[in-house]
């Protein structure tokens, strides 16, 4: 293998060079801007993660799994995963092997940006083929074929997305289209260019036969240069269109993984960490199918993918409209292959609009722990605090059931808000009134600490989530009543009688995706009746429609969501719907054709009296 073109340069590399220089400059400036907008303590966390071996390992593993092999998409739908992995991994390997080839055969050209890309144009094969050369040529052709198969699938997906497991995909913008067509063109053009050159530079199982085929009717070597020009132009255009298109996710995703693993959170809307998230969105549109609002076609435009697109374009009015509409159920975040926390950005956006609204919580000073009416019945020493929460007070059946369960299991407890307490603060946080929420959180923390408890049992997943995330309750164990009951059953403190009912469990958003509690409630239900499957479970559970997350969703729209959710739950004809959130209970109760019960009520009804 020897250099064919002296000086190792031809004019056709110019479009590629312009593109690559542009994109590298753009990425560097972008990276600096992201780092500037990350607040000081977060920057320190980021630096620390670079010297921590386990964090480095995690970063590398996540980057390989998510950026190259796309494990998350594979898990969702194998063929969709293959499509992404073949393009990403194949392209990556083409780049790596290209560099190895240059390093081995023409070491004097090491570090020339364009050389590995157009390697086959610049070299020629001399005499016998070495095994080593044939091996690399084989690898190059193999990975090119891999990429081409992925591109073929991608083209097919454009016309028939359902075949690859997506009901709906996004509408691409202009830059998206340009970059998309360039991406489609790059690899077929590369194949053509390398095939035309294969007679000189050599090739493998793909390029050699193509070369022989072409020689039958296109013997003229004049075809070599135009195809290399076309290949270079396609690459250059792709790089220039990239920052304005969805393909910006290719470089940004790696940055996002590093930042996320360092434990950073969204602080400023559109800047710093949020910018990394926004540009990591690949506009794939998986969130469109995920969104519970999209049972109605008119709501398609409120999907997270469009929210992020408008953020990139800085269209404040539309951003606010979507941010207010969102149910904050977190399903799009859970299913996002890149893991963009769009709900976090939406919350930050709401804060910019509503945090300046006035409020007056001076009455909080008069609220004290243990209202005097109850002091006689309650034992101060008990270490378990039961916190029902506002919503549970709307569904007294849960409170009554919990009281019965505590009594049957002989558990001493204090009731934190028997006569109604202060809200937990999450509704305010979700609505964007962060300062007001802080005041309430401080008050509640003070009340909880005053009670001297070590465990808090909560009936409302919304309260549980906020206490885990935003409260500073070190040393206090926070558990949901499903976990508490499950523990009682495991400890044999609670005996349940088995019934013949078939039951389906609805995963409340805040309990499932929010606090990662899936198995305990199912375990309890299996102790009482037959657990039936719903159509979408666990991570993919559909919001009941009553979520306090949405600000502007109207009653009618919510009803449609509830009906859809109920239908998906009843797919296997269960006798009852069981849930573990007072809000879901209240929402379903009005609309479901079968009885709806909270898990606490189900347990309380079936306690076996010894």
């Amino acid at each position, binding site marked *: 293998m020897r250099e064919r073109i002296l000086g190792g340069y031809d004019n056709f590399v110019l479009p590629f060079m312009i593109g690559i220089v542009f994109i590298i400059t753009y990425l560097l400036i972008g990276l600096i801007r992201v780092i500037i907008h990350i607040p000081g303590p977060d920057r320190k966390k980021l630096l620390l993660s670079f010297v921590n071996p386990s964090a480095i390992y995690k970063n590398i593993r996540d980057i390989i799994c998510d950026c190259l092999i796309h494990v998350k998409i594979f898990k969702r739908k194998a063929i969709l995963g293959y499509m992404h992995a073949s393009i990403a991994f194949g392209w990556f390997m083409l780049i790596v092997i290209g560099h190895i080839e240059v390093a081995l055969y023409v070491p004097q050209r090491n570090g020339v940006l364009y050389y590995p890309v157009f390697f086959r144009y610049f070299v020629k094969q001399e005499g016998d083929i070495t095994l080593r050369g044939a091996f690399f040529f084989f690898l190059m052709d193999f990975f090119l074929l891999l990429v081409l198969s992925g591109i073929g699938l991608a083209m097919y997906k454009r016309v028939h997305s359902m075949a690859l497991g997506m009901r709906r995909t996004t509408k691409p913008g202009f830059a998206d289209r340009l970059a998309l067509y360039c991406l489609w063109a790059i690899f077929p053009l590369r194949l053509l260019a390398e095939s035309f050159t294969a007679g000189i530079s050599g090739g493998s199982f793909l390029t050699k036969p193509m070369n022989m085929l072409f020689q039958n009717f296109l013997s003229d070597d004049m075809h070599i240069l135009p195809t290399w020009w076309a290949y270079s132009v396609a690459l250059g255009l792709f790089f220039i269109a990239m920052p304005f298109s969805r393909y910006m996710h290719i470089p940004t995703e790696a940055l996002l993984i590093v930042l996320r693993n360092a434990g950073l959170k969204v602080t400023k809307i559109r800047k710093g960490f949020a910018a990394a998230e926004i540009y990591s969105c690949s506009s794939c549109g998986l969130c469109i199918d995920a969104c519970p609002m999209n049972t109605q076609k008119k709501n398609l435009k409120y999907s997270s993918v469009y929210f992020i697109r408008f953020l990139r374009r800085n269209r404040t009015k539309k951003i606010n409209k979507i941010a207010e509409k969102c149910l904050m159920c977190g399903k799009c975040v859970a299913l996002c292959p890149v893991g963009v926390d769009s709900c976090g950005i939406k919350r930050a956006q709401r804060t910019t609009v509503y945090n*300046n609204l006035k409020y007056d919580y001076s009455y909080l000073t008069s609220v004290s722990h243990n209202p005097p009416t109850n002091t006689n019945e309650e034992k101060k020493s008990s270490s378990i605090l039961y916190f029902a929460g*506002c919503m549970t007070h709307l569904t007294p059946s849960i409170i009554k059931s919990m009281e019965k369960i505590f009594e049957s299991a002989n558990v001493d407890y204090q009731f934190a808000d028997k006569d*109604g307490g202060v809200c937990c603060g999450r*509704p305010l946080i979700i*609505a964007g009134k962060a300062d007001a929420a802080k005041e309430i959180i401080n008050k509640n923390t003070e009340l909880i600490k005053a009670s001297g408890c070590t465990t808090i049992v909560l009936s409302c997943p919304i309260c549980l989530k906020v206490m885990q995330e935003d409260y500073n309750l070190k040393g206090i164990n926070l558990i949901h009543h499903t976990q508490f009951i499950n523990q009682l059953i495991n400890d044999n403190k609670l005996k349940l009688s088995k019934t013949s009912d078939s039951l389906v469990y609805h995963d409340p958003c805040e309990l499932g995706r929010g606090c990662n509690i899936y198995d305990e409630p199912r375990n309890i239900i299996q102790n009482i009746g037959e657990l039936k499957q719903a159509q979408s479970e666990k991570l993919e559970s559909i919001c009941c429609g009553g979520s*306090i997350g949405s600000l502007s969703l109207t009653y009618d729209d919510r009803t449609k969501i509830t009906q859809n959710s109920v239908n998906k739950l009843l797919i296997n004809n269960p006798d009852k719907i069981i849930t573990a959130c007072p809000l879901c209970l209240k929402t379903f109760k009005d609309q479901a054709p079968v009885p709806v019960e909270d898990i606490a009520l189900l347990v309380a009804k079936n306690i076996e009296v010894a």
Partner: protein
Amino acid sequence: MNKFGYSLSPASVINLDNADKIKFKELIDLEPDVLKCMACGSCVSSCSAVNFTNSSLRSAILSLQNGLPEKAYEYLKGCMLCGKCTMICPRGINTRRLIISIFQTYNFKK
């Protein structure tokens, strides 16, 4: 306007000439649900803040209709947006959004 000087309670006079109808229209544009309210008071009966204050969405809406936004603020300042009233409202009013909208249109800002 004549005020009748009974001494037991202060005169309660509603002067609709002072009511800012444009502001109320703005509110209707922002959250049309405000017109659905039939002043049943379910929101107050379910309110978390009512244990400690005289919060009342019902009274706030009436005050706005009567052109007394300051009074409406007094009724709403303790709201914790917990959303119980939304669940309870027999008219399906999106009360949380309504409360926020009132704060925005009448400029109850810090």
